C-alpha cells in the first residue's frame, strides 16, 4: 500500500453562518487505492467534523454519494484517487439547491419520480395464491437495462435542459424509469403515465445532449430510453390525431 497526499478542495456551505458557498482545502494523507469518499471520510473523522456529505453503501448501490468531482458528476465511492491528480475538487451536484456542504435538496426529483408512477400497473391484481406474473427472459431483457437506476441523480446534474428549464423538465432518470415500466410485459400503465411522459416538460424537453448516459454509473442510458419514448408517444399522438386508436 503506497501513501499519497492530496489537496481536497471541498465546496462548503453552512446556512447558519455562510452567505454563500466557498472552497475549503484539506490536506489528506491517502492510500493509493482509496476513492474520493474515503478521503472525505478521513476529513470528517480526523480533520473537520463539521463537513457534511451523504453516503451509505460504499459500493455503488445506494446512490447517495453523488458529487461533482473535478467538474464531472461522479459517485464518490466509485471515483478512484488513482484516476485523479493531487488536487481534487469536490462540489455538490449541479442543478440542485445546496442544503449544506455537499448535501443537496432532492425533493424536486422525488416528486417527479412519483409522477411517472414507477411501479407495475397490472391489468388485474392477482391474489397471491394465483401465482406469479410470468415473464420470459426476452421480455425481461427488453427493459432490464432501464431498471438498474439507483437514483443517484448524476444524470440530472449533467443535464443542461434540466437547468435551462429551471427544473421543469421531468428529466433523465424519471423518464427512463417511466419507459422501463412501459416496456414491461406485465404492465398496462402506459396511458396512466402518458400525461407526464408526452407533455412538453416530459420527453419533448429533451434535445438529446446525451450527457446523462455518459455520466450514469449504472449504464442505464436514459438518453436512449427517452428517444424511444419520443418515438412511441409520437406514434400515439399521430394515430389519435387521425382518429385511429389513441390511448
Amino acid at each position: 500500500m503506497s501513501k499519497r497526499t492530496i489537496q481536497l478542495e471541498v465546496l462548503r456551505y453552512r446556512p447558519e453562518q455562510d452567505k454563500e458557498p466557498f472552497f475549503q482545502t484539506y490536506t489528506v494523507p491517502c492510500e493509493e487505492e482509496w476513492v474520493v469518499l474515503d478521503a472525505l471520510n478521513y476529513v470528517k473523522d480526523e480533520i473537520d467534523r463539521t463537513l457534511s456529505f451523504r453516503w451509505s453503501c460504499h459500493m455503488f448501490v445506494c446512490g447517495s454519494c453523488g458529487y461533482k468531482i473535478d467538474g464531472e458528476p461522479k459517485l464518490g465511492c466509485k471515483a478512484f484517487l488513482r484516476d485523479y491528480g493531487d488536487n481534487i475538487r469536490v462540489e455538490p451536484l449541479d442543478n440542485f439547491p445546496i442544503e449544506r456542504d455537499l448535501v443537496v435538496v432532492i425533493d424536486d426529483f422525488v416528486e417527479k419520480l412519483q409522477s411517472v408512477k414507477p411501479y407495475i400497473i397490472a391489468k388485474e391484481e392477482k391474489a397471491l395464491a394465483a401465482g406469479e406474473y410470468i415473464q420470459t427472459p426476452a421480455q425481461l431483457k427488453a427493459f432490464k437495462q432501464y431498471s438498474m437506476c439507483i437514483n443517484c441523480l448524476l444524470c440530472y446534474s449533467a443535464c443542461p435542459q434540466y437547468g435551462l428549464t429551471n427544473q421543469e423538465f421531468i428529466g433523465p432518470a424519471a423518464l427512463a424509469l417511466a419507459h422501463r415500466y412501459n416496456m414491461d410485459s406485465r404492465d398496462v400503465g402506459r396511458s396512466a403515465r402518458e400525461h407526464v411522459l408526452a407533455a412538453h416538460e416530459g420527453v419533448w424537453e429533451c434535445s438529446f445532449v446525451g450527457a446523462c448516459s455518459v455520466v450514469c454509473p449504472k449504464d442505464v442510458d436514459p438518453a436512449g430510453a427517452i428517444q424511444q419514448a419520443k418515438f412511441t408517444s409520437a406514434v400515439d399522438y399521430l394515430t389519435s390525431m387521425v382518429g385511429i386508436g389513441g390511448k
Partner: protein
Amino acid sequence: MGARRPYMRTMSKTSWFMTHARFKTYMLHEISSVFVALYMWLLIDGLFRLAKGPEAWEAWLSFIKHPLVVVISLIAFAFFVIHTMSWFKAVPQAMRIQQGEHFVDGKLIIGGHYAALGAFSLFVLILAGVA
C-alpha cells in the same frame, strides 16, 4: 440546528455550453442546422433558376463558384459530416433491435449505416460522372 436556507447556484442560460467539452460537441451538431437551412435555400433558388432557363442557371452556377461561396460550402461540408457522424452514432441508442434475449450490437448498426452511406455516395458520384 439552524434554519434551512438552501442555496441555488446559478447557471448561465446563454453560455452554459462553454463549460464542458461534450456541450461544445453537442452545440456543433445543433449548429449544423444553420448550414442545412442555407443549403436548402440555395437548392430551392437553383430549382427556380433551372426552370427559368439556361442563363438564369448559369448565373446560379457562377454564384456557386464565387470564392466566398466556396469557402462557406467547405464549412457547410464539414458541418454536414459532423451531422452525419453524430446522427449515426445515436442510432443504436434510439433504435434498439432485439433478437430473442440479445440486442444487435450497436457497432454493427452503425457500420451498416456507414456502408449504406458509402454505397449511396458512390452511386451519386458515378451518376454525376457519366452524365
